[in-house]
């Protein structure tokens, strides 16, 4: 088994194999063909005359396409190949197609026994993660030239249809081809693998695809779709060539991260991460849509529609659902189907509901699409009502969270969702409910932006006044109750007794973004953000050096998150801290250059001078949507782009090394506009000094 995994995907269907194209999954090994959060193939192994193959080269041509050049033998030292094998694989929305070619390089014919072993464990993604046992039963049957693998638990049925174009001897564990390949000739076959759900009839001779629609047609759509996506995107030109490369990488990765729900097949929203988080996440989809707005607004409108469609309507403790709440995560696997997991969808987050309103307003400011704002009026009002009626768990006027599902709910319902992310200076963990600071910022921003929409679009000035009054009151109380006087920053949270959870964190940057910080306190916040305890030289750490739980490679307790930094840069610009914002832009863009344009979810918080390069935090998902979106928002922050009525304000504060920088054809209510700036801020003093 090779270490190097190859993954290709389309929406929430993806194939992870080794570099030979083979799949040999174990219960906990995350390889296979997955669709709708279910593994449809856990074994897919090619042999020729009983021999495994060795990869000479592997290319992932597009995010949905891979090619493997192979030769027979285990290839320990030297391969004397008289045969070569080419596997070309295209993933589609409900499975994959593989073209298998065997080339004979000898001057005489050769008899071959070509075999593909296939099996499926039909594991739910959650089962792969937690190594759980299956409760249903397996079947395999042969239908003509196809092998059909099946799984059934009560009325829950999933099937994998494997069909070959060339005549095959099909048995319950695979397909065999006994062929003679002429001298210098070749043999080939197409193989089609279809993931099917709840086959209506066990005597059916065709799969009922989990999605519907002809596959070839979809594939043409994909290739065309990607080309169109890239063509429609604005062009970035920069003297610092790395910026152009990073931008191209981001737009291509964003294309791969596009995901269509069953209810809106023609539209795309950003899924959270590839491949394990190819689903709607309220928070991730909203943040990524916000980041991408200056470059594309399609992701935002689809995200808003999809989230509104599934907005909470009732009180459901298992799913942490309340009326008006925006979902956290949607899943389609067996455990969700049997309500053993709450993801149909699960609502356990305390930020996405306010952020939904923030995105709706920001989207309108860029696009002028008041129709969507009208269509989503009820959803936006319900979201704003949730903040007051359901999120104030302690009756103290602050948004708090605590899961009502002790077994499978989420403890930390903010973006820092790991168990130790919220702590006091001494490392103690607070009880629940918790009111983290950024949630109050988002709530404030949602009220202010909701008021603007109410006044300008819904024509309800009374409601607008009411929201603004609430926002002003929240801001006044927040600046009093969260302010840590001896450190001159805002506490990361209030605990269940209303006491300050007093550690210094990157969350204070989100407060600048939301606008909840009083002007008199903003200078101190900006100083901390680029100060030695938080700023590593590459970016702002999640938790400041000196706090008891600080760990430069701790998930939310010291690493640097590019997404976090992009919103911090935007926040710094909002309060006029150009110098500080440019330092964050310079640091993260330099890291992006090192990572070849693809920023990881997080990297180590070591001081820049001590490692010389950013140390990647090991995560299973890459690219991650909001890391992919981070450079886009950083470019916006660098140029100081702000829509103002039908105009786009440009107020550059770019690091010196950018030189001349421009974005051509920025789309928006002004149709298309070119914007440019010149780097003039010396950021080295801060970024290189750490």
């Amino acid at each position, binding site marked *: 088994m090779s270490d190097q995994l190859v993954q290709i995907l389309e929406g929430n269907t993806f194939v992870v194999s080794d570099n030979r194209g083979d799949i040999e999954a174990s219960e906990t090994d995350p390889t296979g063909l997955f669709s709708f959060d279910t593994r449809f193939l856990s074994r897919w192994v090619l042999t020729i005359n009983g021999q495994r193959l060795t990869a000479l080269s592997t290319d992932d041509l597009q995010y949905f396409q891979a090619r493997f050049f192979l030769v027979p033998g285990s290839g320990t030292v030297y391969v004397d190949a008289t045969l070569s094998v080419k596997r070309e694989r295209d993933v589609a929305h409900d499975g994959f197609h593989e073209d298998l070619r065997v080339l004979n390089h000898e001057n005489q014919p050769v008899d071959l026994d070509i075999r593909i072993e296939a099996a499926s464990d039909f594991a739910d993604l959650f089962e792969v993660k937690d190594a759980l046992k299956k409760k249903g039963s397996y079947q395999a049957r042969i239908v003509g030239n196809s092998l059909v693998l099946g799984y059934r638990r009560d009325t829950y049925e999933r099937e994998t249809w494997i069909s070959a174009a060339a005549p095959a001897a099909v048995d319950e564990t695979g397909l065999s081809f006994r062929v003679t390949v002429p001298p210098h000739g070749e043999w080939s076959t197409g193989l089609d693998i279809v993931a099917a759900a709840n086959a209506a009839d066990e005597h059916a001779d065709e799969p009922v695809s989990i999605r519907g629609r002809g596959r070839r047609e979809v594939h043409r759509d994909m290739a065309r779709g990607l080309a169109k996506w890239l063509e429609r995107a604005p062009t970035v030109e920069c003297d610092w060539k790395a910026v152009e490369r990073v931008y191209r990488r981001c737009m291509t990765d964003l294309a791969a991260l596009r995901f269509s729900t069953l209810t809106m097949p023609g539209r795309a929203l950003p899924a959270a991460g590839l491949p394990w988080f190819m689903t709607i996440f309220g928070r991730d989809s909203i943040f990524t849509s916000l980041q991408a707005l200056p470059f594309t607004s399609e992701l935002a409108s689809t995200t808003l529609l999809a989230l509104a469609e599934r907005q909470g309507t009732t009180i459901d403790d298992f799913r942490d659902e309340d009326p008006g709440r925006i979902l956290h995560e949607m899943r389609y696997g067996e455990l969700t189907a049997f309500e053993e997991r709450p993801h149909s969808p699960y609502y356990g987050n305390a930020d996405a509901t306010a952020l939904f309103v923030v995105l709706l307003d920001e989207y309108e400011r860029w696009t002028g699409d008041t129709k969507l704002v009208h269509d989503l009026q009820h959803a936006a009002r319900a979201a704003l009502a949730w903040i007051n009626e359901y999120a104030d768990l302690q009756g103290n006027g602050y948004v708090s969270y605590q899961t009502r599902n002790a077994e499978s709910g989420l403890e930390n319902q903010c973006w820092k969702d790991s168990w130790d992310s919220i702590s006091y200076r001494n490392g103690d963990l607070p009880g629940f409910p918790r009111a983290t600071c950024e949630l109050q910022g988002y709530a404030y921003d949602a009220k202010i932006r909701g008021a603007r929409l109410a006044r300008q679009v819904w024509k309800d000035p009374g409601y607008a006044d009411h929201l603004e009054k609430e926002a002003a009151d929240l801001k006044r109380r927040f600046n009093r109750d969260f302010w840590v006087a001896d450190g001159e920053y805002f506490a990361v949270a209030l*605990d269940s007794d209303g006491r300050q959870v007093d550690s210094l964190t990157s969350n204070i940057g989100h407060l600048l973004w939301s606008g909840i910080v009083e002007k008199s306190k903003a200078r101190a916040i900006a100083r901390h953000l680029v100060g030695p305890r938080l700023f590593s030289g590459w970016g702002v750490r999640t938790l400041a050096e000196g706090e008891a739980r600080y760990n430069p490679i701790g998930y939310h307790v010291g690493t640097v998150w590019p997404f976090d930094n992009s919103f911090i840069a935007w926040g710094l610009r909002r309060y006029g801290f150009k110098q500080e914002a440019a330092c964050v832009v310079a640091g993260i863009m330099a890291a992006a250059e090192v990572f070849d344009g693809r920023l990881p979810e997080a990297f180590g918080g070591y001081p820049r001078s001590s490692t010389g390069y950013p140390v990647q935090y090991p995560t299973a998902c890459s690219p991650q949507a909001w890391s992919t979106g981070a450079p886009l928002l950083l470019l916006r922050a660098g140029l100081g782009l702000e829509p103002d009525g039908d105009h786009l304000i440009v107020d550059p504060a770019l690091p010196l090394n950018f030189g001349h920088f421009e974005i051509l054809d920025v789309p928006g209510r002004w149709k298309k506009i070119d914007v440019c700036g010149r780097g003039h801020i010396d950021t080295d003093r801060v970024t290189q000094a750490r």
Partner: protein
Amino acid sequence: MSPTQTRSAPTEAGPISQFFDDLTQPGHLATLESERATLRFDVRDGSSVQRWHVTVQDGDVAVTHQNAPADAVVTIDRPHFEAIVGGRLNATAALLRGLLTCDGSVAAVMMFQRCLPGPPGSTGRVAPITSQTVMAKHDPSQRRPA
């Protein structure tokens, strides 16, 4: 099953009829504003099928027993649908599990889900947890005997 083989069960008081009666009582549902869709629920009870045809137009809801075409035709056994309208079974879970099949628009079914009640036992409340309890759960050092 062809239409000639089915017979409409007589309308009777039951949780499903009650649910649809309650749905049309207010006549207008704010949560369905700016929505337009038709759904037909074919509820199987042994050999008989009872139908409810729902029309949603900008929040106005009308229900009949007509066997008319709809954007989404939902087929389900009576006990399962009773569980859904009673909040004991989640409709999306039922769809994924194959208890409920939808012919046509999944979006219409998703929209209709907004009319369904939550689980009977859900209160929206939970007892606070102290810092000590959280520490004991997560921090191995706290579990060590002194």
